[in-house]
């Protein structure tokens, strides 16, 4: 991990309230799917803390990294009105990654189901891309409340993608878990990876448990340091550990490790 000042190369709206921000990745360490970075937004003390964002794509040929963010507070509002060429203060890559956590046995499995919900979409686009580049044929399932929230412009046509909307305005009507339940073709020799709101992650984990699939989740939590020092962003885990740091021990965990509330 390093702290560096980069420039925004592009900033586009990709769905209602969602943006993709591209910037130059100025350090040698290649960020992996599941890893994140933090950005110091503006020079004032409000917002104060750096904001964490998962990496949504990385193009090694142009050293361009991207994040997808939702405008949902003062920090992301300020970020959404920045312009190409503006400086941004990046700290990353932070956290583990799917590649570091997923077991060899699971990696070699046939079916890889990548489930994304809302703001969890960014890192899952990157994971689907990584799996594709590793010769897999991932199924990407994206859950949104409604059609306007689906980030169509950033989807890769070469990846088998299913859209689920709560209101049925696009794709499958229902949740991502409803979709998986209605497709018994997804056999037990599958791995489910998920990132999104906690009820969705919990649903994916339960579904994986019921159907004998492996499951990995990427968590989101309020963070301060981002490097494992402050113990502020913990999640509750099963067994002796009790709490794990989302920023350092995660954000990717084997789903069975997490104690869901």
């Amino acid at each position, binding site marked *: 991990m390093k702290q560096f000042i980069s420039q925004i190369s592009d900033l586009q709206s990709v769905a209602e309230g969602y943006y993709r921000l591209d910037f130059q990745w100025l350090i040698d360490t290649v960020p992996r799917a599941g890893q994140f970075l933090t950005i110091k937004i503006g020079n004032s*003390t409000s*917002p104060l*803390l750096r904001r964490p964002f998962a990496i949504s794509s990385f193009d090694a040929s142009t050293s361009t990294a991207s994040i997808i963010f939702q405008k949902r507070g003062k920090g992301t509002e300020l970020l959404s009105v920045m312009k190409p060429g503006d400086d941004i203060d990046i700290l990353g890559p932070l956290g583990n990654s799917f590649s570091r956590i997923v077991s060899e046995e699971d990696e070699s499995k046939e079916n890889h189901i990548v489930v994304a919900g809302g703001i969890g979409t960014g890192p899952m686009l990157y994971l689907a891309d990584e799996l594709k580049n590793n010769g897999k044929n991932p199924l990407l399932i994206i859950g949104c409340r409604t059609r306007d929230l689906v980030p169509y412009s950033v989807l890769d046509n070469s990846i088998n993608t299913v859209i689920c909307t709560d209101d049925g305005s696009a794709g499958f009507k229902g949740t991502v878990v409803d979709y998986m339940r209605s497709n018994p073709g997804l056999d037990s020799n599958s791995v489910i990876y998920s990132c999104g709101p906690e009820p969705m992650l919990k649903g994916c984990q339960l579904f994986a448990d019921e159907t004998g699939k492996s499951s990995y989740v990427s968590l989101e939590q309020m963070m301060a340091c981002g490097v494992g020092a402050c113990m502020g962003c*913990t999640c509750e885990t099963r067994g002796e550990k009790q709490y794990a740091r989302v920023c350092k021990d995660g954000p990717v965990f084997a789903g069975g490790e997490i104690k869901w509330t």
Partner: protein
Amino acid sequence: MDLTVKIGSLTMSNPVGTASGTFGFGEEYGELIDLSQLGAIYTKALTPEPRPGNAVPRLVETPSGILNSIGLANPGVDRFMSEKVPFLETLKTSVILNVSGSTEDDYRKVLEKTDSLSCIDGYEINISCPNVKHGGLAFGTDPRQVETLTASLRKMTDKPLILKLTPNVTDISVIAKAAEAGGADAVSCINTVRGMVIDTRKRKSVIPAGIAGLSGPAVRPVGVAATYTVSRAVSIPVIGLGGIMCADDAIQYLLAGASAVQVGTGLFVDPQLPLKVSGGISAYMNENGFEKIIDFHGFL
């Protein structure tokens, strides 16, 4: 120009350290900042037994601040010895072990096991936690408890003993005097300020523990005032902290009477901040013809 600071028998290379609880045990930030340039590392609070910490969420951002209730999550003294000490032994920087407890005996147990370690250059005693044997009243709010605890620990170590004061008292100078009377080599002020944030939709505290600790630039004037008050009440050095976000903030603390400062919440915004602050202090000294840190004192 001389940036060194003397606390008891210890000489720190410069006045800027990292505040306890924000910097782990040093290793976590090793890739982001040159640790050898720090005046001191004040470690995460250590208790005799491991503590898992409080329920989540433990943090919430407030206007120009953060509210936290971490719950002293730490590995306990035994795992500290096996997991953290080997790294600390590689550092040339002064390491001040922050110690916390629920009884006097807790503090004593940590000192007993760590006093012989050469990588520990001093102790900072967190007295903002409740004393379970005194009805949960925080040690740091009662001058008698502070003096007794300090005197008890003083007998156990020749290393510098720094008492970290809570601002959540009526008169902080009374507590500082009690620490001095007990034999403390210095006091640091301030620990976090009691605060609360309520989720009006759920109608409950955002942080499950309820009242939590506020830090960051929002509390800086509280810390500067406490430093000003305490430095006039005692003759031992005062270490100022609370909301330092730039060199000028640290200079306010020094002018208020501090001999050293700590950067805490500001590290979360800029991991390089302690070095920028010490650079800014030395530039200010240069511009104003100051030779020593003590030259900051006596203007107010």
